[in-house]
């Protein structure tokens, strides 16, 4: 004997209603914690900008033909995007999966892991794109000349944030304990943040570090903001995002569905 069929629309992969459901949950939740997140995501890079801008700026007038404030301003934007995205998903998705059991509730609804991960990453990327503009505005206040190309900052910030947010989900899905995140922070995030042409150019580093730097997604992001973005840099950002997105879904499915 089979069960009684109930008419239902045939549901497919990556459906807009499922993504909307995940995003609605994030947006409503954001109303309860936006202050703390906004402060940490905008004040911290601004402090970096001021410290490096005034600190190194008093010693270094120009870098690669740019005023140092311009050079470090764009680098700080890239860093702000990375921090606002990777930490949000690393910790956020781990807490929602392991402690709050939020994902058990969402996956009991007509939402698949692919839609859940994609919705989470889209939301964090959108936030990162917006937060990334904060240091840019501060840099302008300290002498960075406005340029039309800067209007692309939220878009490139979104694309870069998408990749880093997906990387954060991937890390969260791989590691067994939240305590292990410090390994990733020390051994991945910190080198990526420093060896990216963000606060100082790669030229002065050993050859191997320069080569490694060119594989750093943040390097391509930082260059994009300096007006030198070409198709290669944008393609690198998009490729990083695409690879991290699929890896994040794959590992999250392994973690959530057993």
């Amino acid at each position, binding site marked *: *004997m*089979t*069960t*009684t*069929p*109930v008419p*239902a*629309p*045939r*549901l497919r992969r990556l459906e807009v*209603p*499922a993504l*909307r*459901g*995940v995003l*609605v*949950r994030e947006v*409503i*939740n954001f109303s*309860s*914690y936006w202050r703390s997140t906004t402060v940490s995501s905008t004040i911290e890079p601004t402090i970096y900008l001021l410290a490096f801008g005034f600190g190194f700026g008093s010693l270094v007038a120009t870098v690669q033909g740019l005023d140092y404030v311009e050079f470090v301003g764009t680098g700080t934007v890239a860093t702000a995007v990375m921090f606002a995205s990777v930490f949000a998903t690393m910790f956020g998705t781990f807490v929602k999966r392991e402690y*709050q*059991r*939020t994902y*058990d*509730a*969402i*996956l*009991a*609804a*007509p*939402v*698949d892991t692919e839609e859940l991960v994609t919705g989470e990453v889209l939301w964090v990327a959108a936030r990162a794109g917006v937060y990334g503009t904060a240091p840019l505005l501060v840099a302008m206040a300290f002498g960075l000349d406005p340029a039309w190309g800067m209007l692309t900052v939220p878009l490139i910030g979104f694309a870069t944030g998408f990749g880093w947010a997906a990387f954060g989900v991937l890390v969260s899905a791989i590691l067994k304990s939240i305590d292990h995140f410090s390994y990733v922070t020390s051994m991945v995030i910190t080198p990526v943040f420093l060896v990216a042409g963000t606060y100082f150019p790669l030229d002065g580093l050993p050859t191997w570090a320069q080569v490694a730097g060119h594989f750093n997604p943040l390097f391509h992001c930082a260059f994009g903001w300096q007006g030198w973005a070409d198709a290669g840099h944008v393609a690198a950002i998009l490729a990083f995002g695409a690879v991290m997105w699929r890896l994040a879904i794959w590992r999250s499915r392994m973690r*959530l*569905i*057993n």
Partner: protein
Amino acid sequence: MSALALRLRGVVKAFGPLVAVNGLDLEVPEGTCVGLLGPNGAGKSTTMRMLTAQSIADSGEIEVLGHRLPGESKSARALMGVVPQLDNLDTTLTVEQNLVVFSHLYRIRRGERRAAIERALDIANLADRRASRVDKLSGGMRRRLLIARALVHRPRLVLMDEPTVGLDPQVRQEIWALIDALRAEGVSILMSTHYIEEAERLADTVTIVSHGTAVATGPPAELVSEHAGAEAREVYGPPARLAEVEAQAQDAGLRTRRTGTSVALLGLERATGPIPDGEHRPTNLEDVFVLLTGEEIS
């Protein structure tokens, strides 16, 4: 034979060397409440997770409302509501916001969303707490909200995993009334529990599971009658005396079970010899549960 809302056939699920579900057969006829009764570790929660495809069976067949799992699980989930054992509400949101989120996740049309949320608030008797943050609610209110959340899209089938675990008796009765009202509306319910009284009061049919296998299925009264008879006698005493009582009862052809402080002699009407004196009581589902799932904690 009535139509089925849910059917499992020979379902097996192992986690490494641990076989959590071992050839489980289970059916939920439409419009009935089926109790999945078993001790901790019997495979109840794993079974529940397989029904939402959050756990994938190694073998066997699972079908829900005409949809084969796991391939068509998304369509099945759109028609089901799930009340989890662990509270996974968004605690910093209000009662209403939690329902708004799930009205979107369950794809309720924009024009119907407000009415669906109001209906869910009414079912759970939470309309006057709609603006309260979840972390300000009592345990009973949170459990009622979990049920409301599962019902917001008017599901045909509701899965409840230990719906009253950890609640005090008054709150448990509130939840029972809510489940009973659902059943009266014709919603099919699969409810896992290890509370005997809960299964006895609410379930039309009980499936007792032990070590991942269904060891008995039927209406509670029939299970009691079949496995434990009609009358029981409790005999109290020190451990040595209880051992003697057990031996005497077995000589008289009776089944026994320990209750902790006494030995219960079951199915007195079937006795073929003298039996020790003690306190009479009717047999119950707990007698059956212990007989079929064992007295030792595994």
